[in-house]
């Protein structure tokens, strides 16, 4: 069933040569949506059902050492509550973005390529969430990375787009490498050190399940250096994909791609795969407490760190991109603290309201042809739907009840807060995450006010704005509904059980909805404060100009320059590495080849010198004969007997 879906997605890529290719893609993604909803609904109505389909892909035979029982690589699908949830996100957002693209991408060249790549992405992403083992997970993980690479570089004539695509691939590649090492470490951990009956884990192909039951982290137990390193490596992989500090640099640059791509890949699905990976790992494989601290630290820090950069950016898409990094930080934080389900819940809601924000931003860009917030203004009049959608997304992001973001973000903060007693080391990161709530509300409404409030565009050369076609509006409306409603899922009677079943059996504290009312109130007040500040500075067409002499001006420069991370990475990536490469090239050409040529010259010189003895004068030749005779005598009478006597024969 699910495998068929992947094939449908792949087959879809082949049909895109036609003029109406976009609609074909929409149709296929619609079919996928139906399948996804069916699966999701099935899990919701009958939670705790695990459906495993599995084939052996490769049998590599036994390997003495770490894998004495042999290694099999399998492919298969595992449908469980969390994968169903993810699949729902992917198919819903995928379908809506496809639909939206019909309008948004209308004027672009290379549409067959666009739809083919997008379809391939959807197929790969679906495969990723349904994978039943780490290897398959990694396989699709790489595939979505490549799709992302091509889609970021969709406008490949633009050097900045080509460069951003490369950057995205490379930075995530760093993460991938760590991920792969993490896989190996977990492999060996469960192949050798696992409890009885689990030794065959590796032989079974590293699947998450044992028969029809999931392997769960608690059954492994224990702390070890190996497991710690493995966890850090998995975190590295996730950090690359989910753009966590310090591998966050690629995501803002990835905004070079079409906005639809940003919405689907770089907001809702692919970047969330990192969080999904962490969640899956924490549920099935287990993190040590040190790992957890590191993950919490990374997540908490990223949350705040990315939010600060969003505060000053003039580009509407990049503001949302930083926001994505920041929100992903929340999820990482939650997973790290042991609340995988909570993190996934935020992932779920975030996918909808962030896709909404992007699509709304896309609508704006479609209308005015620029991404610079400071050129826009007063757009709420000609674009009512978009303005409303952006506002709903913003409210959800800011965490204002009853919008979806409130429920999930509040849950994260609450869960973390409940852990502070046992883990005082989490305090600073809790505070950072808490502070980020304020920043989040501020920057997203700064963007809203800049774009939509006021009387008209600040740059009068902008074209007259108008709302997009219905194919663009429908997704906005649907996503708006989801941005409001998806958080309410928390009140679904089965929802608790649904997610608990993923975790409860594992013995992970099923903390869910343990929000402290006081804490919730504080965060809502903080968010409201952020919105108010934004109104104060930017509302109603105001433009807040920071005096260059102000004390915070250097901070602003620092933020605008993204803490100089990009500069530093560029330096490493080009200057440092290329210098080493040039040096190596020099060694190759002059030292190694030079040595060889030196030998050549030596022989040539020897040849030249020896040639001289061939003087042409016969008396010389006779002299050589005599010299040779004497040499033979020396050899025969002295050297040979001496050598034989000392070395002892031949």
């Amino acid at each position, binding site marked *: 069933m699910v495998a068929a879906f992947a094939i449908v997605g792949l087959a879809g890529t082949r049909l895109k040569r036609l003029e109406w290719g976009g609609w074909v893609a929409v149709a296929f993604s619609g079919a996928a949506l139906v399948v996804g909803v069916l699966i999701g609904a099935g899990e919701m109505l009958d939670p705790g059902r695990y459906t495993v389909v599995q084939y052996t892909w490769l049998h590599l035979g036994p390997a003495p050492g770490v894998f004495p029982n042999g290694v099999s690589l399998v492919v298969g699908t595992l449908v469980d509550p969390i994968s169903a949830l993810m699949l729902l996100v992917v198919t819903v957002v995928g379908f809506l973005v496809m639909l939206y693209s019909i309008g948004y991408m209308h004027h672009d060249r290379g549409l067959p390529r666009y739809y083919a790549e997008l379809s391939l992405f959807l197929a790969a992403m679906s495969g990723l969430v349904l994978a039943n083992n780490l290897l398959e997970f990694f396989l699709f993980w790489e595939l979505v990375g490549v799709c992302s690479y091509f889609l970021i570089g969709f406008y490949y004539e633009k050097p900045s787009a080509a460069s951003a695509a490369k950057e995205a691939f490379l930075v995530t590649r760093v993460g991938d490498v760590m991920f792969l090492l993490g896989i190996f470490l977990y492999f060996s951990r469960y192949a050798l050190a696992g409890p009885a009956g689990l030794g065959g884990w590796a032989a079974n192909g590293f699947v998450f399940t044992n028969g029809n039951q999931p392997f769960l982290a608690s059954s492994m137990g224990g702390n070890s250096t190996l497991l710690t390193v493995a966890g850090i490596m998995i975190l590295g992989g996730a950090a690359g994909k989910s753009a966590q500090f310090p591998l966050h640099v690629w995501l803002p640059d990835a905004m070079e791609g079409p906005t639809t791509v940003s919405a689907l890949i770089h907001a809702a699905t692919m970047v969330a795969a990192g969080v999904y990976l962490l969640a899956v790992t924490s549920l099935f494989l287990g993190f040590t407490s040190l790992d957890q601290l590191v993950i919490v630290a990374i997540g908490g820090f990223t949350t705040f760190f990315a939010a600060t950069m969003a505060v000053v950016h003039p580009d509407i898409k990049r503001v949302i991109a930083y926001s994505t990094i920041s929100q992903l930080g929340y999820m990482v934080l939650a997973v790290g603290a042991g609340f995988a389900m909570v993190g996934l819940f935020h992932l779920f809601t975030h996918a909808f309201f962030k896709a909404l924000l992007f699509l709304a931003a896309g609508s704006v860009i479609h209308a005015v042809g620029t991404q610079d917030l400071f050129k826009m203004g007063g757009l709420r009049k000609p674009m009512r739907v978009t303005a409303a959608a952006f506002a709903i997304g913003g409210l959800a992001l800011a965490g204002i009840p009853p919008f979806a973001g409130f429920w999930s973000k509040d849950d994260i903060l609450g869960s973390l807060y409940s852990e502070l007693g046992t883990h005082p080391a989490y305090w600073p990161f809790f505070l950072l995450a808490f502070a980020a709530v304020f920043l989040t509300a501020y920057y997203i409404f700064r963007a809203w006010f800049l774009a939509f409030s006021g009387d008209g565009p600040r740059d009068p050369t902008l074209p007259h704005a108008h709302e997009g076609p219905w194919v663009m509006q429908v997704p906005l409306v649907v996503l708006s509904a989801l941005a409001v409603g998806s958080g309410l899922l928390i009140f679904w009677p089965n929802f608790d059980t649904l997610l608990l079943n993923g975790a409860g059996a594992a013995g992970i504290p099923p903390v869910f909805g343990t929000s402290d009312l006081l804490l919730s109130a504080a965060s809502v007040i903080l968010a409201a404060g952020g919105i108010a500040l934004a109104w104060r500075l930017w509302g109603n067409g105001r433009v807040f100009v920071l005096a260059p002499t102000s004390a915070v001006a250097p901070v602003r420069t620092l933020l605008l320059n993204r803490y100089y991370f990009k500069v530093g990475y560029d330096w490493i990536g080009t200057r440092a590495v290329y210098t080493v490469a040039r040096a190596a090239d020099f060694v190759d050409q002059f030292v190694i080849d030079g040595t060889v040529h030196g030998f050549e010259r030596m022989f040539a010189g020897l040849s030249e010198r020896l040639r*001289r003895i*061939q003087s*042409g*004068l*016969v*008396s010389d030749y*006779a*002299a050589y004969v*005599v010299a040779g005779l004497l040499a033979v005598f020396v050899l025969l009478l002295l050297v040979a007997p001496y050598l034989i006597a000392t070395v002892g024969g031949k």
Partner: protein
Amino acid sequence: MTDLPIVGFVALSAALLAIGVFGILTRRNFILLLIAIEISMNAAILNFVYFGAYLGGTPGLTGQSIAVVLVGFAATEVAVGLGIVLALNRVKGTINVEKATELRF
């Protein structure tokens, strides 16, 4: 016959060989070279004679007869040498081996 001072005789022929070889190394005139070759050849012939005499009996006779053969051979060899001298002289106008160094290196 066995009390021949054989060491002395061999020393003599060795000296003869040395003289001949010295001549070959130092002379530049082809004719003189031929003479030097003959001198050194005679050292070998003399050796056969001494040793023949020293060994005596049938083995001794072998040496003597070899000496006779070698004398004939030496003559043949010199004749060929002279033929080359003549040809060389006709073509090059000289029999100085120093002048014949066209082939070298």
